[in-house]
């Protein structure tokens, strides 16, 4: 008997180990909980709910009334307003992504030289990072406003015809693109500046001694080295551009004649103005798919041109 009490029985051992495993898992769960709750409430639940709604007809209160399968999707793909919104969005995204990347690259290259005052310019170029969407939009509104806007005042001073920034079909889209590009520049500039700093100076010095021209240096030394960052900036800008809302809401409200009606704005109108949650959910789903597709395509297309070390 004495022997039995002192020795640990096999079944005791397993239960003890089991308890340890459970404790470890509970501890892990405890650490995960905050982000799980956060992501669950604000990401996963809305995501699932959106998928769910997109298969339903909803009433004005946003409640699902009738399951209609893929009917929402079918209708949308024949809806001229949505198709136009899709088209405008694609133009907008292409313009914003390319303009932001190119302008930021240009500015970063300018601010790269260690001259007097470069720091001031760097700060200025990066400062749009600290401006909120609404402030930026209002700021540009001062510029775009008909007759009283800065743009028209300047044009008037030189006796030039005014530009219908917010009312012309094309100009309105240009105005929104300008505002968004301006907002994005700060971050893109900062990221590209950082990448430029990381190009080894010895390569430039070697090239300098070999008599390589500035353009060739840029093309064969700078570009390959910063290509991962350029790719990153372009991807992030693109995804952000797809989700632009504030600028449209404050500058044009999607007008004139839906020429600046980006998808996210269309979703907003369908959900909160037209109170058609089912349609809005379907549009959201399509937007998500679109972003995924375009990003995937971008990865595939640029994969070979980007040099990772």
């Amino acid at each position: 008997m004495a022997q039995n009490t002192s020795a640990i029985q096999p079944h005791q051992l397993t239960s003890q180990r089991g308890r340890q495993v459970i404790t470890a898992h509970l501890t892990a769960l405890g650490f995960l909980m905050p982000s799980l709750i956060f992501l669950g409430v604000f990401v996963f639940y809305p995501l699932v709910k959106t998928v769910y709604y997109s298969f339903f007809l909803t009433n004005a209160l946003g409640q699902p009334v009738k399951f209609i399968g893929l009917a929402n999707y079918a209708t949308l793909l024949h809806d001229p307003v949505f198709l136009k919104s899709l088209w405008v969005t694609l133009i907008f995204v292409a313009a914003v992504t390319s303009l932001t990347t190119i302008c930021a690259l240009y500015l970063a290259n300018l601010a790269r030289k260690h001259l007097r005052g470069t720091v001031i310019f760097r700060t200025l170029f990066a400062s749009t990072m600290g401006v909120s969407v609404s402030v930026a939009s209002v700021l540009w509104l001062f510029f775009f406003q008909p007759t009283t806007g800065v743009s028209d005042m300047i044009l008037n001073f030189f006796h030039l015809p005014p530009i219908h920034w917010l009312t012309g079909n094309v100009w309105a889209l240009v105005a929104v693109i300008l505002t968004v590009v301006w907002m994005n520049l700060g971050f893109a500039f900062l990221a590209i500046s950082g990448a430029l700093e990381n190009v080894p100076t010895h390569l430039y010095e070697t090239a300098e001694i070999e008599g390589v021209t500035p353009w060739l240096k840029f093309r064969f030394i700078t570009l390959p080295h910063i290509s991962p960052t350029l790719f990153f900036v372009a991807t992030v800008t693109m995804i952000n551009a797809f989700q632009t809302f504030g600028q449209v809401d404050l500058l044009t409200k999607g007008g004139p004649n839906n020429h600046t009606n980006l998808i996210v704005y269309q979703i907003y109108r369908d959900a909160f103005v037209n109170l058609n949650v089912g349609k809005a959910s379907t549009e959201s789903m399509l937007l998500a798919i679109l972003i995924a597709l375009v990003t995937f395509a971008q990865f595939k297309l640029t994969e070979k041109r980007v040099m990772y070390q």
Partner: protein
Amino acid sequence: MIELKQLQKVYDQQQDAVIKEVTVNILPGEFFVMVGPSGSGKSTILRMIAGLEPITGGDLIIAGERMNDLPPKARHLSMVFQNYALYPNMTVSENITFGLKARKVASATQLQRLSDALALVGLTDYAYRYPRELSGGQRQRVALARSIVSGAEIILMDEPLSNLDAQLRESVRYEIKALQRKLGITVVYVTHDQTEAMTMGDRVMILNDGVVQQIGTPMQLYELPANTFVAKFFGTPQMNVLTAVTDWKNQGVAIDTPFDPDAMVGIRPEAARLNPENADDMAIEFWVATATQIGSETLLFGTINGREETLQFKISGHLDVPAEQFITLYIPRNALHYFDLNGNMLAKVGV
């Protein structure tokens, strides 16, 4: 080939010059080594020659032409960097011909020079590899090939072997030297490694704090060091320098210095013998603290009776020298170096 006349570098007007009036004439076909501890200014001088660093005083004359204000490409030279500076996005052959392409050299000439250079450094089979696929030694050889292919008669090398491991360093050292001989080019070579300087250089310039300490052939620097800095820089273990020696007899050393009252005496570690060779050899009563066998030699650490400095002596052969006791070491008179109290050479007995 390259003349430096009172070359100076001042970064900040309020502060002392980093390079103080360096004057030297580097001859065509010479392997010229600039050596010194880090921060001595040797790389700065090299970068001033290359045109990567502006010259703030004096003249730089290359092939009879003043080059101070000309851009690097107008100086007709090439440079090899410590970290090779290969373009990572280009293959070996693209790396080598990039400079030629930029200068719009005819493509037939490019190919010819490329294959010559690749053969010269033994990398013909690696022409289409990327730098990341090569070992350190191979990368360094690509950098060399790139320099050679430019056709420049001057190649500047900034610590080109520092990133290689010790064994490789030795073999590449000879390769570089042989290549230089074969091509008859002028090489200005910067290193902090005294062995590299001694084995590679036709002439060596030793720098400290931006001041030239001595210029000469490796043997001159070793045998007739101009000051204690040079004396201690060359040779391992470094030269023993005994300061302010006045009363030698009572310090356990039977020698009268020819430089009364005070002088510094330098003794190379390898000058010590266990048995006298000449009648007038200096005899030292040496307290052996430790004796270390390193292969074919024995290193002795210890002190001379009554003095504070730790001295090192190197005796060839396996010796069973007992530690913690006195032994008598004999040093030939002609192996003694004398310096004044500022460390400048006075004379060397017997030379």
